[in-house]
């Protein structure tokens, strides 16, 4: 309620026609604050004012997730904050996405995410998903405790550019090489870049099991994904 009032006041004081840049800045702030009501309001306003919804998403909301991602990396924000920001982001996306022409987006890549079998620890993966969504990736989330065959089927069906595997347990991490092996057997290994992460995973382990990339945390994972996509485009 308080948020709504301040939002109305804001509009009264500053007039209806904020500049686009201002609106983007507001969206950014709302995501950073994890204020989902304000995010929805601002997204609706953007549509009303005829602002390009794709720009509103990328230059407004996504920028907010970037800031949160950096802050997490530096120990200034924590998981509760990122979860709330993600919630706000998805609120704005709900409003804006139906109005975005897919061709405008120049989506940079398709990413398939999942936590491997035996592991239900999906907070890390969920944070990653929101960061990837904000980065404009087309993200398909298989959830947690995902069996090797489910990864296999989804890869065949969805043809992602990147497969992102997460594990928190030493028992479940041993499922990762099996998934990569399955891809090899099915002749799909060359079609997808595989990145792995989670507490017990290291750069060494990623290399040992034949993954293409490793990230120690969600913010880093975005950089790695972008690097892998570039590689993939060059190879194709």
């Amino acid at each position: 309620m308080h948020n709504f009032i301040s939002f109305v006041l804001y509009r009264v004081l500053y007039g209806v026609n904020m500049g686009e840049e201002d609106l983007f800045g507001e969206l950014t702030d709302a995501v950073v604050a994890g204020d989902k009501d304000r995010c929805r309001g601002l997204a609706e306003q953007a549509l009303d004012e005829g602002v390009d919804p794709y720009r509103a998403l990328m230059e407004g909301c996504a920028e907010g997730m970037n800031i949160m991602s950096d802050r997490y990396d530096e120990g200034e924000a924590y998981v509760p904050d990122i979860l709330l920001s993600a919630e706000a982001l998805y609120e704005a996306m709900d409003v804006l996405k139906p109005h975005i022409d897919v061709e405008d987006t120049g989506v940079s890549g398709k990413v398939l995410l999942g936590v491997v079998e035996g592991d239900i620890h999906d907070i890390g993966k969920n944070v990653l998903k929101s960061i990837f969504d904000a980065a404009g990736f087309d993200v398909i989330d298989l959830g947690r405790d995902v069996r090797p065959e489910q990864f296999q089927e989804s890869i065949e069906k969805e043809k992602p550019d990147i497969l992102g595997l997460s594990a928190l347990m030493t028992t479940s991490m041993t499922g990762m090489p099996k998934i990569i092996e399955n891809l090899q057997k099915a002749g799909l290994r060359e079609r997808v870049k595989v990145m792995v992460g989670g507490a017990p995973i290291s750069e060494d382990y990623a290399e040992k099991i034949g993954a293409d990339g490793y990230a120690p945390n969600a913010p880093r994972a975005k950089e790695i994904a972008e690097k892998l996509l570039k590689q993939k485009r060059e190879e194709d």
Partner: protein
Amino acid sequence: MSGEMTSMERWKNLLEGNPIDRVAAGFDILGHTAIVNGYEALGDFYAKPKVSIGSQLKAKEMYGYDQPPIVISPGYGAGEWGSEVELPYRKAMGAPSVTESVVQNKKDLEELEVPDPSNAPYSDEFYRTVELAIEEDSYPLVTVWGGCVSSTAPMIVDMETFMKWMRTDPDLCEMALDKSAEFAIKTAEWLVDEFGADNWIPVDWLPTDANVLIDSDTFGELVVPRLKKVHQKVLDLGLPMWFTHWCSDHTQNIEAGHIDEIPMGDPGAVFFGPEVTMEEIVNRFGDSNIVIGNVDPPSFQNKPQEEVLKLLKDNIERGKDSPKGFIASCGCELPPRTPPVNTYAIVKAAREYGQY
């Protein structure tokens, strides 16, 4: 090799502050004991008292490490509340998983009653496991878990909901933590009534209180008062000490001074993850606590024995002379599928590099 103390002599002397022949070896070796006993999955180990205690005692004897059996309720501190728990009967699972937390919203939480530990789901199995361990005279470490985020989310409240409440409705977090603390205290009282206070040691685990998830301010405000209460009440029951696993990265909680505030007994035993350097642990906590080693867990699973031995040697050399004693160990649960010779490396390293 002869002239060595037995494991039990070494362990008790360590806890009592008496001199021992060498550093003690092994801590948090759990699921691995089922694997070396031939169980393909860890389901029976977590579900069945006999399997749990039997596997741990046999593995301890085979390797020659010193850690007594650790008891965790098959309800995992979650089933007791009515949350759904999947026991690890699938090979890919490393521990029980909470598949659905009983509290999804505010109303659920408000209506949630604190269970009677002697009568809650899984209490019979839990009781039987403690009883078996005590009958075997093995001086077990019994999980008494409450007042912290780790015993509450996702055990009682869904994890994401709890994390969001921290910012939107901290009152609800406090309510959940209070209920969890009350349950832990009641559990300890029940166990002391049944078994006394001189044949088991309480242990608790704090993974989701770590600073990869929450900031030290939140920990200080929400968790510290309740964890303090639980620890103090249990010590007041006559139990000598706590073993506490500050799992994952608690560096900010250390810096903020929160960990010093938690009563651990005299001495207590602190078990940090590899994220904290051994020097810092010894300097900061060694005067009043037994220090437990913290070699990187995945290395045990993935590296050859000579490398694991090197890591252990380094860790032992830094921790060995900590005033209240040292236990050579992996920095979290030993990966269940660790090659046995790497588990044995803990004992070997303690013998080779840990003599006093």
